[in-house]
Structures are given as structure tokens and as C-alpha cells.
């Protein structure tokens, strides 16, 4: 068991967040989950601003693209252009399947692009698979001492 693994979900749909949590709960990996509902909140969370002063540094971010206030595309670009955050794996998890979104996300430095499946069994399986891959098989960058 690897204690202290943190996953950050960025998604404005409470229903999707619950589906994602349900999928994550099926993974055998141990981790903490935090969630924020838009891009601006995500940036505050990562920069530990305001009410997020005590926020943990995530080991993995699941980022939706179409978000209110600050779009997921902007969040991605901001993270990948900031040396403090650029090493955190970002998985784009969105309903979009547009080639333009896929290409642009990878060009901006997304580590993976996954389209949200349209039905529950596949959605839960996709999330479980992502958790198993990123938090077990993949070797994540080591966090700096806090």
C-alpha cells in the first residue's frame, strides 16, 4: 500500500463525479479523492489559495474539458506551462470525442485522453482501469518533501 496518493477530479457535473467515484471505489488501489467543479477552483486548489490552503498536492488529475469559468483547456495549458505542476499526470476525461480536442490536448501536454463512455458498466470499468493503470502500473513522479 502506498499511503498518501491523491487524486483530483475536475468536473462540473455532480452526476459524473459520482459515477467517477463509483468507478474509483472499484479499484484495489488506496487513495484519497478530492473534487472541484470548475477550472478556476482547480487552479486555486493546486495553488493552495483561499479555502484550499491545506489542499494536498495531487498525484493524478482527471480533468473535464467543458467547464464553467475557466475551461479545462485553459487549466491544462496553465498546468503544463508551470514547472511546479508540469510533471503531474493529467488525464483528460470528457464527453468530447472531437479530433480537434484530442489533438490539442496532447499538444498542450495532456498525458492521456479518455472519452466518457455512454453507459454505466463501461464508465465504471474505464475509471477503474485508469486508477489501476496510473496508480499501480505506472510509476509516478516522486513528490517533493512538503
Amino acid at each position: 500500500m502506498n499511503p498518501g496518493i491523491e487524486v483530483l477530479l475536475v468536473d462540473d457535473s455532480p452526476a459524473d463525479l459520482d459515477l467517477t467515484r463509483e468507478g474509483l471505489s472499484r479499484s484495489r488501489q488506496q487513495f484519497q479523492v478530492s473534487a472541484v467543479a470548475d477550472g478556476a477552483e482547480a487552479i486555486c486548489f493546486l495553488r493552495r489559495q483561499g479555502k484550499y490552503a491545506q489542499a494536498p498536492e495531487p498525484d493524478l488529475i482527471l480533468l473535464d474539458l467543458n467547464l464553467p469559468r475557466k475551461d479545462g483547456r485553459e487549466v491544462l495549458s496553465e498546468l503544463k506551462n508551470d514547472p511546479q505542476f508540469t510533471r503531474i499526470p493529467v488525464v483528460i476525461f470528457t464527453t468530447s470525442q472531437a479530433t480537434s480536442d484530442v489533438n490539442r490536448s496532447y499538444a498542450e501536454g495532456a498525458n492521456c485522453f479518455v472519452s466518457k463512455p455512454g453507459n454505466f458498466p463501461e464508465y465504471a470499468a474505464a475509471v477503474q482501469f485508469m486508477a489501476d493503470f496510473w496508480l499501480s502500473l505506472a510509476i509516478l513522479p516522486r513528490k517533493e518533501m512538503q
Partner: protein
Amino acid sequence: MECIKQGASDYVLKDQLLRLPEAVRRAVRERQLREEHRKLLDDLARSNRDLEQFAYVASHDLQEPLRMVAAYTQLLAERYQGKLDENADKYIHYAVDGATRMQRLVQDLLAFSRVGRKGAERCKVDCNAILATALQNLQASIEESGSRIERGELPTITAETSELLQLFQNLIGNAIKFRGSDAPVVRIAAERAGREWVFSIADNGLGIAPEHFETIFVIFKRLHTRSEYPGNGIGLSICKKIVEQQGGRIWVESVPGKGSTFRFSLLAQDGRAERKDKQDVGSRAS
């Protein structure tokens, strides 16, 4: 006569000046009718565009809430199956079934309304290469059904590649899907007819009764139950839209029990010049 050719809308002899008021009235009425006619055509074109836009927006925006309904009824089914009572299981099953069927319908409607929307460039395409790709994509069902495919020589035309591929794939896919008791034999060919090429996809399958020759091209029209043949009845309506957007026609000839031949016409490469202006106007409007 000469004056009319030059643009006059009527011609009055001096000794018929008495009839002038009548001639003026007639000319005015004709002009009014022409105006009304043009206005009606404009209205019709606008209404068609609005309708297409509506279908696109509706099917696109319905997907999100529908995904929620489908996902959560499936979650309910998974978690509470056998824990409520028999009726609850049945009702949840109906809800899951309805939601997933509606998802497929909405996806199909979206695919239909996307034809011609992409604004992809039309270019010269070798139909032989398109056919080869279509057959490759259909390889599993060709092998599984033991189909024999007979390919004639096809021309090079100007078209949108992915739509042409879909056209061939839908028609050949149908030829295999609606097969009779014999192994399918599908013949693909093209013949020159004036400025057009007429393509044909002929099969030895179930065939279609003459009263259905038109209705099979209507969106969501099916001649069979879902348990006999799966599908939503979208394939041929997409074919029709693709062909008509390129200025062609599609039709079927068939004898029930003997097989069907689907034909579609597309403008030939060297037939294009004469109709270029008309084509350009058409593609701008869409």
C-alpha cells in the same frame, strides 16, 4: 418577338391600345406571381435549413442528459437487482432498455444531421480505392456470411471521401445483412450515363416489395422487427442524404426473393464543368 427577347414582358400593338389596361394588369399580376413563387422557395429553403439545424442541435444536446439517465438506471439495475421486488427489477429493466435505445436513436439522428455539415473539401477520389477500404471495413461480416464480392471497374469522381466511403459501406453492408438462404453474392459496378456515372450494388438477398421502394429511404423506417434484423433504419436515409447533397439520385430495383439492386448517380469528373455554377450555389447554401 424581338422586343420580348430583349427583355420586354409584353408587346402591345398601337391599334390595340384599347386593350392596354388589360395588358398592364396582366403584366402586374404575372410579376406578383413570380415574386410570390420566389418568396415561397426562399421560405422553403430557410425552413429546411432551420429544420436541419434543429435536428443537429437537438440530437447533440440531448446526448448529455440522456447519458445520465442511462448511466444511473444501469447503476440502479446493477446495485439493486434482486433486492427490491420482482416488479422493481422489471421496471428498472424497461427504463434501462428505453434509455439505451434512445441513445442509439439520438446518435443515429446526429450522424444523419452531420452529413454535409463537416464542410470537408471535395476532391478527386478513385472509387476503386474507396471500395477497397469499404470492403476491408466489412471484412468480418463478409467472411462470416461467406459472401462473394464481384468488383467492376469504378471511375474517379469529385466527392467528399468519408461520405463516399460511408455510402458504399452502408449499401454493401445491407446487401450482406439482408441475405437470403444462399451465400450472398454482391456485385459492384458503374456505368456512364450522359454526364453522370450510375453506380450499382446488386445482391441476391431477400429483395424488397415495390410498395417499399420509396419508404426504405425514410429515416427510422424499417421493414423488419429488431429481433429479425438489428438496426434503427438510419443507413439508407444517410445514403440518400449523401447522394442528394452531391446532386445525385438514389433508387432501388428489386424482385422479392430474388435480390435488390441499389443504384445511385453522381456527376462525372468531365460532366462537372457544365454544372459548376449550380453546384457552387448548392454547396454554399448548405
